């Protein structure tokens, strides 16, 4: 019987397999940031171990960094960033610190450098590592103990998850984006729907997505509970990689491409589970609750807890409405926001900024609007295209690269009771600051919302 893409990549990386034990998997690329690594480096020192492959490891500063120029004011944040600098210097790991041209959100810089390639295993102490699966890599988030494990051994013991196919038939209608697609998928299968699975996104609508769009989709696999999300590499992938600093060149490129072309699920392979979704019926999506599965088309109303038959979902909805300060039956288009955030590893790439700029060009924002490039390189590219002028002219704030308002760890936060339309990936209670209320949206919806102050689709303008 044939094998799935996930199985092929997994098998290629088994260092050791023994009955009754997890496989020991080799890790091709280990990404590091300041939050989940300090205790791992400490552990290494305590046990007198070292980093096995600093040359397969790369670090950046992203979660804590302020997105306005200047030093980190918060002392504790600063210590964490300084600790990363000390650790990477001590163990000989390449670091892109604040202000460096290569700095950015960890999941944006890997692909940008061409370090993320098809068929690789990629890990990071960060759940959105699933982003890199857009290249047909097997990429997943790990905890700090596992970070230490990978540093020390360049491997991880792991059981192979089951495989799930998400077959996306048809084409996305005009104005409907990768973000809407993944929000719709999560709403359909639920936040636990992917638990225990590596998901492969397939079908016409997926093939038509750009690499940026594919990264947006794979990024949020974890929000459906999946261990990883993958998309088989194709010409779009190769074109994106060609010429990037760490992509192979010359005959190595040809060899690599030949191998990469074999990285697709065989026709006779079987998935443990198959989910179908019809792209052509989708519209812009927005979340109303406090988990990413609580999302609906923007044209609908806030649901009522009574709409949910399952008692667990019903009580979750009740709690969510209370936290979000929303009444059942309110049309989502009537929901007013104070803040709009465009950025994060979900939607902080150049294509996302272009999409937001297209809507803001010649218009004015009525809310506080933060536009935060995912990396310094994205920032540079955007400025070369003049996008920053568009944002500034519209009254939005154009910031330095970082995680920013995706999570309340740096100065960009919501105040209690404030409401945002955000292109990030989590609408958990307090995620963007204590008491903050988050509606997850695409960059297009975010920009349109900034113009009206209410949740708005671009077509409404």
């Amino acid at each position, binding site marked *: 019987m044939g094998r799935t893409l996930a199985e092929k990549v997994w098998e290629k990386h088994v260092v050791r397999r023994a009955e009754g034990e997890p496989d020991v998997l080799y890790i*091709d690329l280990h990404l590091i940031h300041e939050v989940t690594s300090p205790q791992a480096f400490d552990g290494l020192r305590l046990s007198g171990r070292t980093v096995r492959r600093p040359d397969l490891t790369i670090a950046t500063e992203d979660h804590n960094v302020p997105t306005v120029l200047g030093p980190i004011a918060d002392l504790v944040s600063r210590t964490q960033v300084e600790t990363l600098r000390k650790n990477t210097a001590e163990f000989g790991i390449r670091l892109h610190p604040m202000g460096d041209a290569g700095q950015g959100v960890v999941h944006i810089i890997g692909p940008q450098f061409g370090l993320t390639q098809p068929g690789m295993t990629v890990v990071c102490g960060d759940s959105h590592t699933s982003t890199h699966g857009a290249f047909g890599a097997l990429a997943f988030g790990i905890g700090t103990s596992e970070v230490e494990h990978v540093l020390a051994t360049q491997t991880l013991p792991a059981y192979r998850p089951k495989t799930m196919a998400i077959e996306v038939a048809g084409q996305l209608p005009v104005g409907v984006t990768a973000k809407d697609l993944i929000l719709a998928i999560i709403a359909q299968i639920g936040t636990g729907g992917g638990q225990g699975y590596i998901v492969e996104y397939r079908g016409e609508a997926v093939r038509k997505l750009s690499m940026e769009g594919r990264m947006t989709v794979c990024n949020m696999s974890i929000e459906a509970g999946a261990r990883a999300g993958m998309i088989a590499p194709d010409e779009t992938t190769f074109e994106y990689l060609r010429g990037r600093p*760490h992509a192979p060149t010359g005959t190595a490129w040809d060899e690599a491409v030949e191998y990469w072309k074999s990285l697709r699920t065989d026709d006779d392979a079987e998935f443990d589970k198959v989910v179908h979704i019809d792209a052509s019926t989708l519209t812009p999506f927005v979340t109303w609750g406090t988990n990413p599965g609580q999302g609906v088309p923007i044209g609908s109303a806030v649901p009522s807890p009574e709409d949910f038959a399952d008692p667990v979902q019903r009580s979750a909805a009740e709690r969510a409405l209370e936290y979000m300060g929303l009444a059942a039956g309110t049309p989502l288009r009537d929901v007013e926001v104070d803040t709009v955030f465009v950025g994060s590893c979900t939607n902080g790439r150049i294509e996302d900024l272009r999409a937001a700029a297209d809507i803001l060009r010649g218009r004015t924002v009525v809310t506080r609007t933060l536009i935060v490039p995912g990396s310094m390189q994205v920032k540079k590219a955007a400025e070369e295209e003049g996008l920053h002028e568009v944002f500034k002219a519209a009254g939005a704030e154009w910031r330095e690269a970082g995680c920013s308002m995706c999570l309340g760890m740096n100065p960009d936060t919501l105040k209690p009771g404030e409401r945002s339309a955000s292109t990030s990936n989590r609408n958990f209670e307090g995620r963007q600051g*204590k008491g903050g209320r988050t509606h997850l949206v695409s960059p297009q919806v975010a920009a349109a919302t900034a113009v009206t102050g209410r949740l708005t689709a671009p077509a409404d303008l």
Partner: protein
Amino acid sequence: MDAFTTHTGRAVPLRRSNVDTDQIIPAVWLKQVSRTGFENGLFSAWREDPAFVLNDPVYEGASILVSGPDFGTGSSREHAVWALQQYGFRVVISARFGDIFRNNSTKMGLLPVVLPADVVERVQAAVEADPAAEVTVDLVERQVRLGDLVAEFEIDDYTRWRLMEGLDDIGLTLRHADDIAEYENGRQRWLPTTV
């Protein structure tokens, strides 16, 4: 890591689903560079509500957390596990766990026990009725016992063995350093390095 064989203690019912790691330990707590001191961050936003179950004195000193489904979803922060342990929990029972959280727990010796939703509900109801009731979580027998309730749970043999022995994963893997070196020799030549 401390070995885990069997644990008996009182339990606290957490009647919420999708308890994501941002709730278990909010992001502001992640700025520490040490591994200690996270107990005060545990559920810190929810604990501000006097009615939150952990604020109920009858559950003080409980060491088993019994939660609704999808516990530990979201971010990979191992700080969630440290916070639970440092607060005094040895076991979390739920119908379903986030994958990364479950991995992190077993690395640190916090036992995640999966029981069917209706059994979790029975345990919650029992400790609500009698907060002093003692619950035994027996990893050797793979059982949760409470009064006349005996519920079997599944855990793979390898993880169970590692937890019972309190073994360090890295040490176990380094026993196979030769296999790793051999694998490295066979890697495709075009694979990137970060240098």
